[in-house]
């Protein structure tokens, strides 16, 4: 390898690093101040690319190619910033008092809406934008050609970083933002208008996303998959750097960019999983990222007071619910029963996630790992060992249990978003294994032919089979929630510091919860593969994890019935809308946004809240009259 090549590869790495930093910086700023996990950041980036296409096309005709191009890029960034402002004003600000992560669900709705809006506005074809005037072609560096635009990109990253540094250290606004990043309560008490602080931060974050998208245009055509393709990487860079740290994001982008440039020389097939391996590695060494500060989230937090239905739900009432579920499919056709089966299976998946998240306080962005592993366990038993359904279903919680034991051991050492991102990293690693180990898993084509035996091949019988199994596990999980273990798990969620001082090793407790959640998600996965007949790596992927999160949040986190309601609502919505229109993403996204705004505590959570308010009003009345 000659020196010219190494230098050229380093420069290439630096250029990718700049791109990554641009998108990650906005994300990290938004998270740092508002604690919003903005899934729609990729959508803003994509909008940046599309808007830049339109803006440069028209402005280059009016203002001339050079001026038109750069004015177009800048206008685009401002415009996308305004979209961010719009989102804050009409959506996010209504959700600041909702349970943690509820904004995530809202931004997920926005992702779906934008996915359908973009082809509607710009058409489905990829739009190849103009090359940057003044940066066309290449220069020669030690015998290797290097594109001028890449050199420009190398410079833009540090410039933006420097600009942000000045902004945050030399302006009153920036200092306030930094103070808010460190400690939200303090800023609230200083009498600063928090609303405008949040709003301006969303503008800045969206501006940076738009700029990143616009500057990508000379390298990549605007296309409708840009959002999905960038968002995971943006999160990875943000997390490696330490959530909320701009300089951390800068370092993380450099790390990823350079490692990737040389990594593919040695392992050309590592591309799918590379950045997640780096993230897992960094988080194991530095649980708060490179420059992240240790988060003391365990003050007396209002967020822990989610409404819950634990006192309302009793065993007889669970049996009544199961009885209703047993009556539902009567008189319906195969398809409807199939949908109901899917609802049940996802309800178990969501319930296991809620056990971890709602009761255990451990957010997981990668719960599909266990669901998918369960499905793969069942499918592999069927496929490679010709095992029947009983053996395959028996295996389905075992494999996830082993994975949960391993992953949980690392994950339970951290908390909050870092824990969530580590679960995501593990899920992505499993996903890429399923994707690339073609001989075992069939690769992205997946495994087919996983059907239940003749006796259960009738959709109705399979429904009852699934219902009895899921009902059993549901009751088991219900029992565990109310048992000493469940009580202490909830106590650990409310204050792990307190419980630890009371004599429980919180890490062990959470690890056990991880195992329980993993195994029950696995069983759901096993049932799923028999209901569908075929599986592919999609069931280990981020979108399925997000589906699970959406179900939990939409149903009402920390509630027992929430996951069932969330699964029913989401599956039902998707099926209905998908059979009515191809623009189902738009309608589904709108429905999510609508539900989030109307039921800011989730469906069940909001209902309980109504009852609690009523009860409070009634007891107040009786107190006054007595």
């Amino acid at each position: 390898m000659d020196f010219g090549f190494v230098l050229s590869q380093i420069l290439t790495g630096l250029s990718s690093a700049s791109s990554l930093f641009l998108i990650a910086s906005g994300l990290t700023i938004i998270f740092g101040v508002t604690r919003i996990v903005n899934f729609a950041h990729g959508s803003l980036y994509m909008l940046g690319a599309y808007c830049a296409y339109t803006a440069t096309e028209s402005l280059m005709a009016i203002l001339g190619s050079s001026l038109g191009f750069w004015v177009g890029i800048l206008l685009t960034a401002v415009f996308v910033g305004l979209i961010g402002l719009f989102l804050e004003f009409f959506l996010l600000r209504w959700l600041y008092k909702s349970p943690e992560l509820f904004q995530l669900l809202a931004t997920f709705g926005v992702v779906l809406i934008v996915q359908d809006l973009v082809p509607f506005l710009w058409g489905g074809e990829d739009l190849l934008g103009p090359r940057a005037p003044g940066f066309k072609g290449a220069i020669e560096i030690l015998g290797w050609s290097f594109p001028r635009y890449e050199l420009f990109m190398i410079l833009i990253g540090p410039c933006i970083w420097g600009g942000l540094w000045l902004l945050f250290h030399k302006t009153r606004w920036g200092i306030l933002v930094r103070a808010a990043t460190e400690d939200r309560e303090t800023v609230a008490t200083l009498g600063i208008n928090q609303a405008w602080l949040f709003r301006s931060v969303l503008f800045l974050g969206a501006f940076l996303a738009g700029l990143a998208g616009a500057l990508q245009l000379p390298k990549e055509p605007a296309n409708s998959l840009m959002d999905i393709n960038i968002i995971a990487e943006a999160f990875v860079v943000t997390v490696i750097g330490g959530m909320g740290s701009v300089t951390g994001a800068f370092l993380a982008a450099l790390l990823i960019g350079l490692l990737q440039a040389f990594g593919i020389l040695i392992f050309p097939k590592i591309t799918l999983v590379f950045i997640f391996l780096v993230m897992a590695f960094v988080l194991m060494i530095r649980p708060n990222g490179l420059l992240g500060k240790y988060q003391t989230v365990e003050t007396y937090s209002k967020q822990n007071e989610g409404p819950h239905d634990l006192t309302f739900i009793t065993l007889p009432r669970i049996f009544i619910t199961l009885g209703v579920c047993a009556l539902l499919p009567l008189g319906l056709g195969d398809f409807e029963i199939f949908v109901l089966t899917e609802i049940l299976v996802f309800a178990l998946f969501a319930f296991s996630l809620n056990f971890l998240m709602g009761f255990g306080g451990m957010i997981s962005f990668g719960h599909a790992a266990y669901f998918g592993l369960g499905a793969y366990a069942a499918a592999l038993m069927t496929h490679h060992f010709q095992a029947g359904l009983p053996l395959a279903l028996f295996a389905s919680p075992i494999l996830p249990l082993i994975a949960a034991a391993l992953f949980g051991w690392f994950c339970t050492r951290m908390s909050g978003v870092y824990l969530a991102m580590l679960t995501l990293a593990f899920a992505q690693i499993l996903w890429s294994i399923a994707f690339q180990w073609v001989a075992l898993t069939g690769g992205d084509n997946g495994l087919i032919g996983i059907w239940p035996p003749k006796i259960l091949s009738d959709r109705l019988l399979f429904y009852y089979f699934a219902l009895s199994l899921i009902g059993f596990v549901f009751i088991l999980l219900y029992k565990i929630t109310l048992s000493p273990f469940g009580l202490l798990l909830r106590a650990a969620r409310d204050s792990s510091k307190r419980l630890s001082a009371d004599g429980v090793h919180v890490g062990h407790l959470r690890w056990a919860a991880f195992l329980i959640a993993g195994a029950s998600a696995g069983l759901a996965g096993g049932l799923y593969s028999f209901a569908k007949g075929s599986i592919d790596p999609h069931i280990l992927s981020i979108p399925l994890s997000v589906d699970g999160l959406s179900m939990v949040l939409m149903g009402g986190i920390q509630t027992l019935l929430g996951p069932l309601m969330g699964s029913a609502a989401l599956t039902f919505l998707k099926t209905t809308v998908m059979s009515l229109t191809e623009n189902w993403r738009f309608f589904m996204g709108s429905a999510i946004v609508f539900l989030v705004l109307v039921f800011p505590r989730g469906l069940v959570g909001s209902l309980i809240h109504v009852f609690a308010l009523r009860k409070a009003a009634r007891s107040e009345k009786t107190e006054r009259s007595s």
Partner: protein
Amino acid sequence: MDSPLSLASSRTSLLKVKALCKNFGAFEAIKNVSFSLFEGEKLAVIGPNGAGKSTCFNLIGGQLSPDQGHIHLGDMDLTGKPPPFIAKAGIGRSFQIAAAYASLTVEMAVQAAFLAIKGQAYHFIKPSHHYYREDTAALIEQVGLGALSQRLCAELAYGDVKRVELAMALAGNPRILLMDEPTAGMAVAERQSLMEHVVRLSQDRNIALLFTEHDMDVVFRHADRIIVLVRGQILVEGPPDRIAQDPEVRAVYLGEDPL
């Protein structure tokens, strides 16, 4: 420095802290701190903000581990042990910012404390409310929360949260109670009553009390002995009357405050 042992030499020392050090980066939070706590004693640690009181308590409680030095409870070495180990060894504690379980009722919170300290965490089927019912009810009554036992901790007044924490700390029948600012954030009238409550309970159960406190009235009324911590070091230690008179203490810490 005068020996404080005159006051307590007849009693056996329960907790021994020897040459404790803790740094946060370049900042020395605790420098070479040594002291003993005797059976049944009420020892107060006072000092200005940032003197290292909470750090000191977190070192003893296991929330932090020391860079140097030793902590012994009787013959048992507690240095660098995790909080659950220390709790089971017989040190109960409360935190400066009261930490109760917001989503649990008072009864469940105290029950959780019993389950925790007795090592009953890994029971999965039998409902938790069947465990330690009488003990829980009695303890809640003792800390004066009998009327509120079915209320959520999140709904309680701050003073009542402090009482819940006290109950939780007492669930394991500890030999030592560590209280980091037991009355911080409470109304003046409530402070004395809570502190009297604490003192009475600890006397009944023969628990040694180690506490920090901002309210000097509380300190001087209840402490048997006082340690003054300044910039991570012990400035002086002794009985309340001597501390009140100590010119150095008055200069550095108490300022013009007439005692």
